[in-house]
């Protein structure tokens, strides 16, 4: 078990280093950090002095390690656009993004798995067919358009739900949450549906396909021949066997959720990290972009690690000791 985790961690290191190098290269060589700090009028002497002060005249590898060192201590530089420390900007906005992403994922999983199981068990029923057609439409609809259409329907036409912002948030130490107020929850509905929709359709289609596959397997036929109850067969035997691929997709899609939170946050003016990132891309605010890249890199590596550990928990075959010291 410990060996397994260590091996996975070792595999993650090159990825993190690669992400670090790219982030550093962006931070240091793209754009003009000195120009951004000095503004319009400065002499060459000024420039050289500041470069020396910031250590920008040192060899690249020294700068790289200092960049990493600073990043590890939460220092990602100053935003060109806002003029505030990048770390502060992120700390303010991370809770909004996390609450949105978690709500969207939970929503997607809670709807997608039962729907996928249903469509897998009764593939010919009209409900299943409707679900499949709906999911194809869902895949062809870009996230931003889902958001726009939801706003049109529920905010503009019906006036039921707010179309932008987080509503009232409650401060809990460094964290701000919208879960505790009615307006916060109302504000969460449309963005969470928008963000979760793609994931929902994907998971549903996958669960259905895996259920169909598993239900054809010999062990399910044998379970029927043993006279087990249908509920036990579907939810005890079949569903568990679909979990490994489903966990993979949920894990990988968590990455997609992070990515599309950029889009969703823009549509709903949700004050999260994604909106910050898109504003930075538009303004070529390199320090924020570099920090975002690092953050996303860490999130992805963590997700992959957790997915691997979940496999381990679900599938006993992976728990076999390695050849050499096994039975």
């Amino acid at each position, binding site marked *: 078990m410990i060996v397994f985790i260590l091996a996975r961690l070792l595999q993650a290191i090159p990825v993190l280093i690669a992400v670090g190098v790219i982030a550093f290269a962006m931070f240091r060589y793209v754009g003009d950090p000195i120009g951004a700090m000095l503004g319009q009028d400065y002499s060459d002497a000024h420039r050289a002095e500041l470069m020396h002060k910031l250590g920008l005249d040192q060899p690249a590898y020294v700068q790289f390690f200092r960049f990493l060192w600073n990043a590890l201590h939460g220092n990602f530089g100053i935003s060109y656009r806002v003029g505030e420390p990048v770390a502060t900007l992120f700390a303010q906005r991370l809770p909004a993004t996390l609450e949105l992403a978690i709500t969207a994922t939970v929503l997607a999983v809670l709807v997608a798995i039962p729907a996928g199981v249903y469509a897998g068990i009764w593939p010919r029923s009209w409900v299943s067919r409707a679900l499949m057609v709906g999911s194809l439409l869902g895949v062809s609809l870009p996230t931003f358009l889902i958001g726009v259409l939801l706003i049109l329907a529920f905010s503009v036409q019906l006036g039921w739900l707010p179309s932008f912002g987080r509503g009232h948030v409650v401060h809990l130490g460094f964290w701000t949450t919208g879960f505790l107020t009615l307006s916060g929850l109302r504000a969460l509905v449309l963005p969470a549906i928008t963000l979760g929709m793609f994931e929902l359709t994907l998971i549903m289609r996958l669960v259905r396909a895996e259920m169909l596959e598993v239900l054809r397997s010999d062990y399910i036929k044998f379970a029927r021949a*043993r*006279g087990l109850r249908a509920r036990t067969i579907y939810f005890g035997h079949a569903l568990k066997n679909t979990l490994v691929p489903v966990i993979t997709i949920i894990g990988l899609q968590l990455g997609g959720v992070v990515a599309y939170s950029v889009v969703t946050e823009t549509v709903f003016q949700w004050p999260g990290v994604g909106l910050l990132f898109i504003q930075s891309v538009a303004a070529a605010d390199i320090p924020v972009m570099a920090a975002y890249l690092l953050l996303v890199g860490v999130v992805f590596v963590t997700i992959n690690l957790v997915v691997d550990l979940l496999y381990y928990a679900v599938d006993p075959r992976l728990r076999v000791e390695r050849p050499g010291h096994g039975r």
Partner: protein
Amino acid sequence: MSAPLLGVADLTVEFPTRRGILRALDAVSFAIAPGEILGMVGESGAGKSLTGAAIIGLLAPPGRIAGGEVRLEGARIDHLPAEAMRRIRGRRIGAIFQDPLTTLNPLYTIGRQLTETIRTHLPMSAAEARTRAIRWLDEVGIPAAARRIDAYPHEFSGGQRQRVVIALALCAEPRLVIADEPTTALDVSIQAQIIALLKRLAREHGTAVLLITHDMGVIAETADRVAVMYAGRIAEIGPVAEVIRAPAHPYTEGLMASIPPLEHRLERLAQIEGAMPRLNAIPDGCAFHPRCPRAIDRCRGERPALTPAGATMAACLLAHA
């Protein structure tokens, strides 16, 4: 014959397809007495496995029973409601499948699979079910059963897994077990052990067995009577010794000429010229006539019924001519 445990009469199974209806089983009739082992032999596609699936009500759609009846201890069990049929499966009719590597759910311990089967059918506490599961593992020859019960399927060898499958089929003490090619997927060296185990358990528990195989050698070793299937019909049925010694149907004759020792299996019966017809091209009259060395004109137009021929019953016009 005493009252049969299982009675199958004129069982017909059809598959509707786009190009018409395929008749996969055509008026199959036989009976199994309590404690009897009936072998069922034939080439791939002759309808052996389908017969088993039809009896336990697990025909894969769109296959369906189109005619005839199946009686278990006198009561009809074809066309029972799904829930009633489920209660019969595992409790009154057990099943053993071909490939033990794929018939066990890889994600659950064998103990869990055994106890869930036992508790589905018998009113037992978890502890009682576990004791019974251990006893059954012991009985099918799993060493250190009390410890191994918490192991996962992948921790057992193929032969051991088939022993577990047998325990799963028998753990609720059904009166009848349908064993569909129980040794085909196993190593040759293991096959004899599994057959011996099945035979011993059937005798000790008084369980009747429908033993489906394409291996005439296994039948000769194990069965009391044998039914020979050809193109979805029974060609000949009778006591094993008689069928081997004096086969009445030309197809059986060809089959007997090819009995290999137990160590050998054969996929097709090479001793008979030609191949079994496909379901969409079964000839009129006797289905075997195009391959039959002794066919006469009548065989082309007249379908022979299963009638007594010496010590056995055969569906051949020549057998009682």
